């Protein structure tokens, strides 16, 4: 399988077993009506790694992220060209069930958005959608998801309390637990810590490292240090003269932040513009 990534010999990539590509964007362009928001995006996301998408404001990072779980479908004027493959199947194909795509590719948003329900019901919402109603099974899923989100000790005695009574950082972890409850394979995170205080931010970053053992994570962030701390691979995006977003460079994080190949990437990560 060809990989669209330049790997230098003396780079310290974690080579644990085969490299599997989980998600792949292939000549992807996204249009909102006549406006071309993304042009010719090509990237291969490795399984169980954290891939960050960085770039200046308005370069199309969120649009790209939302293409991965077909959230762009919610915008009436949106349409795409090209393919996005999950395990080598085009998620925009004709016989594809959007609901299943969204189950397998979960999303965590910039501002925590717990439902106005109890903590338990927040996490159980997803499984209930898919017909799981037995109390015992739900209890197990809820507990396991909240534990994976590193929130269990803080809420185990108050599962019946409203999800909105938690602090910002806790709410975000609750949203992560909620996404985990439907057993996704990929987790998309759109600036997951930008609305949180620094300590909560670091906790979420630690959590990402733990989650990456089992899930493929794609994160959009405008915080470069966060991308450097957290990700294995980084993709740099920018808008061209038609204000369409393009991928400028895509490589392992170590290379992007110590010796990027493209001058525009260098200028951006050193803070010389953006």
């Amino acid at each position, binding site marked *: 399988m060809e990989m669209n990534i330049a790997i230098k010999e*003396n780079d310290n990539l974690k080579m644990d077993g085969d490299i599997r590509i989980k998600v792949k964007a292939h000549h992807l362009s996204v249009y909102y009506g006549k406006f071309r928001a993304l042009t010719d995006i090509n990237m291969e996301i490795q399984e169980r790694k954290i891939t960050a998408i960085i770039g200046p404001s308005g370069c199309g990072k969120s649009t790209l992220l939302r293409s991965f779980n077909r959230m762009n479908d919610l915008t009436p004027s949106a349409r795409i060209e090209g393919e996005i493959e999950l395990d080598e199947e085009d998620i925009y194909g004709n016989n594809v069930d959007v609901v299943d795509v969204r189950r397998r590719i979960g999303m965590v948003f910039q501002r925590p958005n717990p439902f106005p329900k109890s903590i338990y019901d927040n996490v159980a919402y997803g499984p209930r959608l898919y017909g799981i109603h037995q109390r015992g099974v739900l209890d197990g899923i809820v507990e396991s998801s909240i534990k994976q989100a590193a929130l269990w000790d803080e809420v185990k005695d108050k599962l019946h309390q409203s999800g909105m009574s938690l602090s910002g950082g806790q709410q975000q972890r609750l949203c992560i637990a909620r996404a985990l409850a439907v057993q996704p394979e990929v987790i998309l995170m759109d600036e997951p810590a930008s609305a949180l205080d620094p300590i909560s931010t670091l906790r979420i970053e630690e959590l990402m490292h733990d989650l990456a053992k089992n899930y493929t994570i794609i994160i959009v962030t405008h915080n*470069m*240090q966060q991308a*450097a701390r957290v990700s294995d691979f980084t993709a740099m995006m*920018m808008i*061209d*003269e038609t204000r369409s977003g*393009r991928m*400028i460079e895509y490589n392992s994080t170590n290379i992007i*932040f*110590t*010796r*990027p190949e493209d*001058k*525009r990437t*260098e*200028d951006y*990560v*050193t*803070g*010389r*513009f953006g």
Partner: protein
Amino acid sequence: MDIEPQETHSSIRRTLESEIQELKDELLYLGSMVEKQILGSVDGLKKRDLEAAQKIIDTDKEINSKRYDIEEKVMIAIATQQPMAHDLRLLASILEIAGELERMGDYAKGIATINIRMKDEPLLKPLVDIPRMAQKGTDMLHRSLTAFLNEDVEAARAIPQEDDDVDHLYDQVYRELMVLIIQDPKGIQRANWLLWAAHNLERVADRVTNICERTIFSATGEMREISSEKKD
């Protein structure tokens, strides 16, 4: 498709850039201190000036403290400015080079120590090649620092080749001293010291090669050992 980057505003990172400039100036200053020490120690040895030698030894403390000063500033810049890519490589290289310079200072101190140890015993022979080694070495050092500050990759690749000249001079010193020892075995102690001094100067040239490696790394990201053409 050609995508133009937006205008680069160096003013965005004025603080970091001025800190980097300050560090470069400090490094240059440290370099010139070390050059003076090396030339001064050999000159003192040639003239058997024991006072000068003592001064060299005392001045080494300043070199050490300047080196730690530079280190601390680099650490602070890294912690507070989160430099990336080229900036990061540059700062890491400044750290390394400061260390190399400090060790070169130690070599000069070693030569001054030899001078003092020899006390009032005369030199085995008038020094010719050893001063030449010092001259060559400090000249290489000076040019290598200039290359680093100017990010002159070509110069950085060329300078290490001159290490061969220094090695030739060292071999010459060695052979001459061997002859002298055979002629007069009582001079073996002094010959040993002189050989040691020459060895220190040969090490100076080696460290200049390290500085050139760092220059290339800082400018291009390429980390490769430059080996001299001479076969061991």
